[in-house]
């Protein structure tokens, strides 16, 4: 039987967090659907949350957890406004393809 550590080291959480963050980032870059991009952003946010909580345990302080609350609040706000924008774009373009939305071209 392998000799598993009894507690999971903080590094493990950080690596997991990095991997999930990378996957999320990949989603933002690969997906053309605004909705899926949005979900990928949520995934990235959660990955960051994970490392905050891991650090909180590591340093024995609550501040990391508190930050997660704020991130969640921001995420909620972001989702509300972001989805509203997507709905708005869909109304005018009948599409959520992000590449159609390039009016800000310089």
């Amino acid at each position: 039987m392998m000799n598993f550590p009894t507690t999971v080291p903080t590094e493990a959480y950080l690596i997991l967090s990095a991997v999930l963050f990378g996957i999320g980032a990949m989603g933002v870059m690969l997906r053309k659907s605004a909705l899926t991009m949005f979900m990928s952003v949520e995934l990235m946010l959660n990955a960051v949350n994970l490392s905050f909580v891991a650090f909180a345990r590591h340093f024995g302080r609550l501040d990391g957890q508190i930050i997660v609350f704020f991130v969640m609040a921001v995420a909620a706000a972001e989702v509300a406004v972001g989805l509203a924008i997507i709905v708005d774009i869909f109304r005018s373009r009948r599409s959520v393809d992000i590449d159609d939305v390039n009016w800000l071209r310089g």
Partner: protein
Amino acid sequence: MLEQLWLVPVFPLLGAVANLAFGRQIGRTMVSLIAIGSVALSFLLGVNAVLSFMSLSAPHGFQLRLFDWISWGAGSNAVHVADIGLLLDPLSSVMVLVVAGIGLLIHMYSVGYMAEEPGYARYFVYLNLFTFSMLVLVLANNFLLMFVGWELVGLCSYLLIGFWFTRPSAAAAGKKAFITNRVGDFGVLIALFLIWVNWGTFDFFGGPGGAATGVFDDPGRVLATQGVAFAIPMLLILGVTGKSAQIPLFVWLPDAMEGPTPVSALIHAATMVTGGVYLVARAHLLYDQSPDALLTLATIGALTAFVAATVAVVQTDIKRVLAYSTVSQLGFMVLALGSGAYAAAVFHLMTHAFFKALMFLGAGSVIHGLHEQQDLRRMGGLRRYMPVTTWTFVVGWLAIIGAPGLSGFFSKDLILARTFARGLIDPVYLGLYGLALLTVGITAFYMSRMVFLAFFGDFRGGVDDHGHAVIPHESPVSMLVPLVVLAIGSVIAGWIGVPSFLTGGTSPVSAIEVFLAPAVAATGVWEGTLEHLTEIVLTGMSVMVALAGASLAGLLYLSGAVNPVALAMVFSPFTRLFEARWYLDDFYRVAIVSNVARIASFLASFDLAVIGGSVTVVVRTVRGAGSVLRASQAGYVRGYAVTMLAGAFLVLAASWAFR
């Protein structure tokens, strides 16, 4: 009553303010009453103040400080650059009486002269304002307040010359007068800086409430720095040449005749143009320090007197003859100042105020009677149509050419005598005396020419430019009364300066000089006095010269013995020079005005091209860089996401590498 001195300038100011505020509503009678009443009150208070002042024992001057002006701080930190205060001394006494007195007469005259004028109230506002400003100028107790009056009279002059501002020539003349004066004021301004730096005060005299030591309490302070002792008088001379229309800045005065004639009489003959003379007389203690400055002044005066007289010979406009005559007479005053005979200058200033105002008003009466005709060639024989005007004018004529017994005789001879006396010490002055004597002859000539052409012979102006018949008529009584008063003044004003060789007094100087002495007596060592016999000879000479000039005019224009046109042909190089006014205007136009304009237009295009252009270059550069960079802004969200992530990656990698 001396404490009420401040009311003397304030009344005209109140009159101006009242007419400015209500002049358009209250009707012409009220406007005239307010305007004349305020000046009359001012005159009466002035007389009263002068009498009170003379009754003081051994008076040098009376100083009345009114309120702080440019000053700040309190206690030991207080700084008094200048305060508002008045000074009454013999010099300002004479000036106040002249200004308020002549001013009063001209206000009265204007009622008739300007009766048909739409801008009636405006005219009297300006005239009252001028009286106020001139009184401030002569009553100020410090240089800065005097400069205020000095500038304000320039303003009023501008406003009144341009009174008929819809005439382009009037508007241009007003501007020319103001700007030319400003050039002169530039010199005064620098002189004021020097005074402040050297004395730390502008007060003429120290006294309670002001500086402990005034400029004139310690005029020798500048002797320590020789340059300053010369510079201040020279800079003030620049102002004098502007205000008193001397070479090289006299060009504005003939143009100033665009204004209404009473204005020409008051401002451009009797009072404002004598401001420069007053300034030098007031500051004579500074001039006494610098013989060089005095000589400059005398030379300017003599040359101006001569040049202006020669130009006057060829003028055909009655007002222009008088204008050049004024310049010439001011030249005499300045010559007197330059000779150190300040009292003589002030004396001539006073007599000149009477007879020149008289002649201007007479000319105004003529113009009025001829329906705005000013050309001498279309006058003639007016004595039959307007007798009062003619005979008062003749009095003025006799006074100015120096007919014995009249005012001009005494004052002009005093100047000649003093210049001659100075010449005994400094021979250059003998040359100036000769020039002045010649000018006396020319003066007699052109003045006689004018009188003969206008009032004698036959009337030549039967038809005006529009073909209407012109019948000359005498002016209304309101215009004639001032003429008569001034004519009387032109006769008797000189009697306060009768030389002692005629009165048989023991004093070497005349009564007016005695009176003025506390204020203007030269402090130098070289004020010469002459033997009575010498004075008699000099007087005889000047009378002879004047007689010769008048006789020549009689031959040319009265008897017709010599044809003036033929004579002019003989002297054509000279007449052309005179008619071109010695080319001074042309010189200014070519050498200064056009060059300044050229520089200015160059700078304007420079500003547009270089200063503005440099901005354009920067803008172009930025815009070019922007158009390169904008290619990267394709507007694709995912593209931005990649860029962001790549950037974050680079930052991380960099911090990893350089950890």
